[in-house]
């Protein structure tokens, strides 16, 4: 055995497959290169934003629930409210961030006392990085106990099949089949279950109100924001003022 044989055996326990991280980095980079419009206005194709994302964005929100990244103008409507014979109401939130006044009215018309509030984001520059947080926060919401909330709002299991087009450490973005590229990986995953909610008005204690705290999409400085629609149940329709959060630039970003 000569020196080349010995050298060939050195570090022979090295992986024989490309690491998922390297693969994902490559795909993300290609995606950024090949689809530069991603950093600009959101393209018209339908996308889903799954999982975490924008950790800093959650700072000021009591509950931040990433749901869907909106499609472009002219996409399907942002929400759907459907009342069933058993008295439950299915609330579907997707794509567009618009006509939330209409959402509030539709819920009320279907027997769900509701308040929909829209909160913008603001950019923060802290700890050497750029982040985002909600521009104001309701610090003292008079909420029903969690058990009541769980009875009023349930989330059916919904799965989504898509093709991974971009993935960072905190978020995964998929496109639907029509827009998939051959190199994209097909995934079937649990959809953000908050995008479809079943409201049980009969479980709402008298006087209580379904509260939807919607945050507008944020797109700035490389942050491709999200829409969040946490659903809460208030004891009454009294809504305290939304107190501006500290820090961040004065520039507010909302649609």
């Amino acid at each position, binding site marked *: 055995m000569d020196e080349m044989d010995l*050298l060939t055996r050195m570090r022979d326990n090295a992986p024989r497959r*490309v690491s998922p991280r*390297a693969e994902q980095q490559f795909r993300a980079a290609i995606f950024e290169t090949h689809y530069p419009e991603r950093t600009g206005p959101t393209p018209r194709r339908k996308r889903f934003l799954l999982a975490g994302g924008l950790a800093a964005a959650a700072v000021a929100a009591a509950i931040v629930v990433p749901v869907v990244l909106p499609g472009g103008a002219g996409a399907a409507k942002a929400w759907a409210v459907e009342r069933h014979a058993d008295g439950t109401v299915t609330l579907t939130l997707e794509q567009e961030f618009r006509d939330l006044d209409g959402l509030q009215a539709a819920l009320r018309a279907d027997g769900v006392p509701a308040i929909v509030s829209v909160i913008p984001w603001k950019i923060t520059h802290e700890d050497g990085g750029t982040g985002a947080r909600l521009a104001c926060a309701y610090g003292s919401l008079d909420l029903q106990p969690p058990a009541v909330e769980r009875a009023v709002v349930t989330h059916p299991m919904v799965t989504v099949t898509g093709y991974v087009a971009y993935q960072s450490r905190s978020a995964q973005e998929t496109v639907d089949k029509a827009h998939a590229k*051959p*190199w994209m990986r*097909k995934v*079937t995953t649990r959809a953000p279950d908050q995008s479809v909610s079943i409201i049980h008005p009969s479980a709402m204690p008298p006087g209580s109100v379904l509260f939807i705290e919607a945050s507008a999409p944020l797109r700035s400085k490389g942050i491709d924001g999200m829409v969040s629609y946490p659903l809460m149940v208030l004891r009454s329709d009294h809504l305290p003022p939304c107190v501006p959060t500290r820090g961040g630039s004065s520039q507010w970003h909302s649609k």
Partner: protein
Amino acid sequence: MPIETRAAADSDYAEHDDACVIGRSRDEPEVFEVVFRRYADQIQRYVARRVGADAADDVVAETFLLAFRQRERYDLSSACARPWLYGIATNLIGRYRRAEVRQYRALARVGVDPVAESFADRVDEVVSASAVNRRLAGALAALPASHRDTLLLVAWGGLSHQEAAAALCVPAGTVRSRITRARSKLRRALGDSDPSA
């Protein structure tokens, strides 16, 4: 995990050489995925052996991204892209040269290989190196960078001398010369005898 789309992409080009695939990717960028799937495993292994698992992820991703961006400049008369990709990877490893050498020296000095440890399944697993590997590591650390690149493209990348020459953009004679000198130094480090005996 369903991988129908991958299988379709690979099977579509199974009969095509790399030059054909890269040429096609100039009009259909997503076809470059085929190049990635053909070579990512072996490039990852080569890079990981040199700089460790963590740095390898970045180098591998960047290797293929650079290749993707430079696909217009690829010489379509070269049927096999392997040397080209190894050349890009080796250039990128240059950024980690000091760290690479430091790791060889650490292995030579204390007998624990931080790179091999990065492949270990358990974080607390210590990979003890043999006396032979310690000597090899010391010799690798002492080689000129160009000689080390050439030697390891052949030993760890599995490239032929001709392919290494193409990867490094040097004449084949230069590769032979570097390999001869590097091997001589390794032999001396090993004591000019059969160390495995």
